[in-house]
């Protein structure tokens, strides 16, 4: 398979993730969409790394995974406290911090 194919798949996955973040109201689902985008980036990194024959991209992918795991830990904690306080996971119900 050509690197191009990997990039097309990665772009598709990224677009699906981006759309999910923008359009869905459920915070859990938005979170999963963010994971999709991160994984799309990982796929792209790994594909380029293999094509060029340089390991740096692989290492970057690991770093992204670690950051993603940390982000999930923090993000889930926020979501849980939100659910406890307001009994909702709808992102539109949390729009008080405005003028």
């Amino acid at each position, binding site marked *: 398979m050509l690197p191009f194919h990997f990039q097309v798949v990665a772009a598709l996955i990224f677009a699906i993730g981006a759309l999910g973040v923008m359009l869905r109201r459920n915070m859990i689902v938005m979170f999963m969409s963010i994971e999709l985008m991160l994984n799309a980036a990982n796929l792209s990194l790994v594909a380029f790394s293999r094509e060029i024959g340089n390991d740096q991209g692989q290492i970057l992918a690991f770093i992204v995974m670690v950051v993603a795991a940390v982000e999930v830990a923090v993000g889930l904690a926020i979501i849980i406290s939100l659910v406890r306080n307001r009994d909702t996971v709808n992102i539109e119900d*949390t729009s008080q911090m405005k003028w």
Partner: protein
Amino acid sequence: MTEHENTALRWIPLLPLIAAALSGAWLVFGRRALPRVAVIALACGAPIASFAIAVVQVFKLALETALPPDAPYYSDNLYTWISAGDFHAELAFLLDPLSAVMVLVVTGVGSLIHIYSVGYMDDDHREDRGFQRFFAYLNLFTFSMLMLILGDNLLVMFVGWEGVGVCSYLLIGFWYLDDANAAAGQKAFVVNRIGDFGFLLGIFLLFWSFAQAGLPTVEFREMSANVGLLAERTVALPGWLSFLPGFPTWGLLTLACLCLFVGACGKSAQIPLYVWLPDAMAGPTPVSALIHAATMVTAGVYMVCRMSFAYSLAPGAQATVAWTGALTAFFAATIGLAQTDIKKVLAYSTVSQLGYMFLAAGVAAYSAAIFHVMTHAFFKALLFLGAGSVILGMHHQQDITKMGGLRRRMPVTWATFLVGVIAIAGVPPFSGFFSKDEILLAANQAHAIPGHQALWAIGMATAFLTAFYMFRLYFLVWSGESRADHHTQASIHESGKWVLVPLCVLALFSVIGGFFGLPDAYGDLFGVQRSNSLHHFLQPVVHSAEHEISHATEFRLAALTTCVGLAGIALATVMYFWRRDLAAKLAAAIRPLYALVRDKYRIDELYDAAIVRPLRALSSSLLSRGVDQGLIDGLAVNGTAKLVRASADGALKYLQSGFAQSYLVAMLLGGVLLVAWLVRGS
């Protein structure tokens, strides 16, 4: 180390500054006031120590054989203040015969006034530690005055010049809780600002023209030696000045000297800038004595004498100085005739005597001007301090129509006051006679000045008026029946030692002060060579005009002056001692004229209508309402605030929707645009 260097000079101004700084710092940072003993020791000790140093140094100056006898001087260079290209101004002090005389007068008379102030200000137990504050100001003033005198260039002189201006403002408005006093301080300050503007212009003009001639300097000795460079230079006047004599070009030095003289007019209260001095009597009486008799008001005379090398090449400026002085002398003397406030009489007398000094300087009799500065410092300080003693004894009553018959109640003050009055009236051999006579003689012989005979006549008339109004003051205060109310009469008392000792010392000097400048004609009578020691002492520095005149003429003129003075005294005796009803009758007979004189020719009202009110109107309408409230407050400050608020209200706040997803869209869009921009070329 040249023979001219003398590091002792710096301590003369520095000691009062240190005392003022210590006292002032304690005032600001200390929890409570210094004990009075400490304040007195610090405040009086500093000028007395300065005086001691000054005496030693002046004697060294006069007797040192290593110095050239035709131009002796000491200098003390602290450091280079300004250094730019080939121009440099030092912070340096200069002790030559001219500054020597002034420094002795200022520190000597100043010390006496400091001592006197201890007695005068004793009852000041105000919340703001007035006693200590007063002495801090007084020391600061002494420091500024000494800077003015000892500065060896125009810049250092200007520092002192401005310093005495600030201190006079502080001291005149010392009792600031009274609005009138604060206003008097402001008036002195503002009027002096006008003069200072002229003075600054003069300094700039001189510096600029010396720089043009290839010698950028403001140092007196250097300017004096090279003034010939400027002698022939002229400046073109602008067209709207075509009414002036000598148009279209003026001598550069004439213009510079006129500018400097504007400054002197402000500081030394000459027409038309004299109006601040009578009001300045609002300050405590020692302040009146120090500032308005001995030191600050003579700064203008000193400056003109210091710049005599320039004035001697600018006859137009000299004539202006002489005429301004003579007219001021006469004008102020007429106002003095009808004043009823004891200090106001003395104030107008000061203005008048300063006019004499400028008359002398204008006819190039600089040593006579300095001589009169000296004798005037003695007898006018004496009179002011005597008036202060009277005011203390009368419980702050200053109206001479409510005094009278104080002679038996305050004998020491009476005796010294009488000495002062005789001295100023010009009775020989008291000090005022010799200095005044020398001025009148010089005016009589000043053939270079247009109308010098008229100047002399005005001077004689002024001498008559001076003798008259001073003895009017004397009789109204000291003789006859007391006109005070019974309550005050019962408690009139003689002042304490702090007050009386300085009075006696000043009285002594008022009597013998004239012998420092005994004219050579008198010396010849007793076989004393060069008896006019002051004149010969000053001759190397000031370019006084020499006039050949026979001793017979000199004695004839002196006799005439004496007669005129005695006539004034006689008239005052008739009107205010023998026939007391005459004065009132005369006043009633010439009521409109009398009222005009009593109201000081309504000059203050004229200034008020012509300058103050239009300025106020302009300020309140255009500057305050238009520029300040309209432009600055309205457009700049509030306008900015309104703009920010409106833009936030109208549009910006809607960006903060609180919907996380709209932020995400913005982020994504931004990211896309950023990437697009980064890859646009490739």
